[in-house]
């Protein structure tokens, strides 16, 4: 586990994301107001916040699924003409009528020959540990396996930015931990910029370099997670930070509790 490759500056190929004064309203409800955030290339940022705080809206805007916003978003990647963002949803969203490998190949878009697509899709499937399941229908896979296929599909085009909209929310606890390890591994290998929306404070602190708390459409908290990888969830500094973040989320403002037995 401690043999994970360290990221060096030369490896970084993720894009920088600059979110400048972004706002978004739905009918009468303002979800995001004048949001400003600078994300460095290759950074892993977790976005936390209560339901309805606008974090998923922000994610959809960055992924290019929503263009009815005000302000500006710039995604830049050095050495590339165009930076590409890919999104991973809470649901796997696999096409039930396409085989697993064809689903992964979809991630390369419509303008690629099938032969090349299949070779690259096979590599991406290998990377998520499902190399031998390519010819099967998606419905035979378990929930965790389906999300791994969705991850392979998101990564097969080697995007500069991967946007994750609570992709592990529906998985059971054990599968979740496995997926978190997988995500961390591919992020370290590929060096893309990752933006993860999550409800799970532990997940945010396990994976992210930096945690951003959004409240009522604005950034309420923005801090770096100082622990080395792979992180130990039960270490005292980790748990302390976890409780402080949870308190900030829930507005309880409690200091770390002194346990008395």
């Amino acid at each position: 586990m401690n043999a994970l490759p360290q990221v060096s500056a030369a490896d970084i190929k993720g894009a920088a994301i600059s979110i400048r004064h972004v706002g978004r309203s739905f009918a009468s409800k303002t979800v995001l107001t004048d949001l400003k955030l600078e994300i460095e290339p290759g950074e892993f940022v977790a976005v936390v916040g209560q339901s309805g705080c606008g974090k998923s809206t922000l994610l959809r805007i960055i992924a290019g699924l929503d263009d009815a916003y005000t302000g500006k978003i710039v995604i830049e990647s050095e050495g590339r003409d165009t930076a590409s963002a890919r999104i991973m949803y809470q649901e796997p969203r696999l096409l039930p009528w396409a085989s697993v490998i064809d689903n992964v190949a979809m991630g390369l878009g419509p303008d690629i020959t099938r032969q090349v697509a299949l070779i690259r899709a096979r590599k991406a499937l290998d990377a998520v540990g499902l190399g031998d399941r390519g010819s099967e229908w998606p419905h035979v896979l378990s929930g965790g396996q389906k999300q791994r296929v969705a991850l392979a599909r998101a990564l097969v085009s080697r995007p500069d930015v991967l946007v994750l909209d609570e992709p592990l929310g529906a998985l059971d606890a054990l599968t979740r931990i496995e997926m978190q390890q997988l995500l961390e591994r591919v992020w370290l290998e590929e060096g893309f910029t990752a933006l993860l929306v999550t409800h799970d404070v532990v997940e945010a602190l396990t994976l992210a370099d930096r945690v951003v708390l959004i409240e009522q459409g604005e950034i309420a908290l923005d801090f770096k997670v100082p622990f080395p990888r792979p992180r130990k969830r039960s270490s005292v500094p980790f748990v302390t930070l976890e409780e402080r973040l949870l308190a900030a989320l829930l507005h309880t403002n409690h200091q770390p509790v002194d346990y008395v037995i």
Partner: protein
Amino acid sequence: MTDLAFDAIKPATGSNRTLWPTSLRFGLPNQKLLPWLLPITILTLWQLASSVGALPASILPSPTSVFFAAQRLILSGELQGHIATSFSRAATGLLIGGSIAFTLGLSNGLSRLSERLLDTTLQMIRNIPNLALIPLVILWFGIDETSKLFLVSLGVFFPIYINTFHGIRTVDSQLVEMARSYGFHGFQLFLRVIFPGALPSILVGLRYALGIMWLTLIVAESIAAQSGLGYMAMSAREFMQTDVVVLAILIYALLGKAADSTVRAIERWSLSWHPAYRKGGLQ
């Protein structure tokens, strides 16, 4: 250890799809024969009733006389001729009506403008029983081919139109969004996501359409035709040839079954990804 537990509750003779214990399934060696058990029993009873004279031939001829009628008509080439005529009318009508319905279903399913423009009109026409148009159709087209094609086309139109429209509208919007985010749009989006998503519904429409196709054709041929199975049955009635009438009815049943089996085969082939359509799955 779970394997052991499963083995214990499996019936000894392979298939575990039936709840019946092995002893009760004795004498039914082949599951494929099971659907034919009832028709064969009825046929046997019918033959017995005719042979002992309980069933007069003027009411219902015996199966053997129906068989001899079939033999006679096949030898004279008459039966093949009528079946071929009816079959080509049915196929042409299905092709014309089905392709117009499919096109309009696609167009109204994909475009709100098209739906607003056409759907109300189509729904009004749908509620007219198409056989009620027979007098008008005879006045328009006489009793030649056009009148039958018109009625069959109209009959198959609505099941295919409605199910295509419904299938397209109920394609999972999350999948469409996903495909768009990967750069699929226009024809590629249709081919990869929308059409396969709508296909189960379209095939249900086709199955309904095939039933209506035979119904409409036989009625139309009975009233206004000079060839075809419906004509054969009607002219036999005039000469009191009950064996030929019954033969025609049996042929309708077989043709209906053949049409249904064809669509089922198409379903099994094109929807093999769907858990409910795989062989041995839910039916």
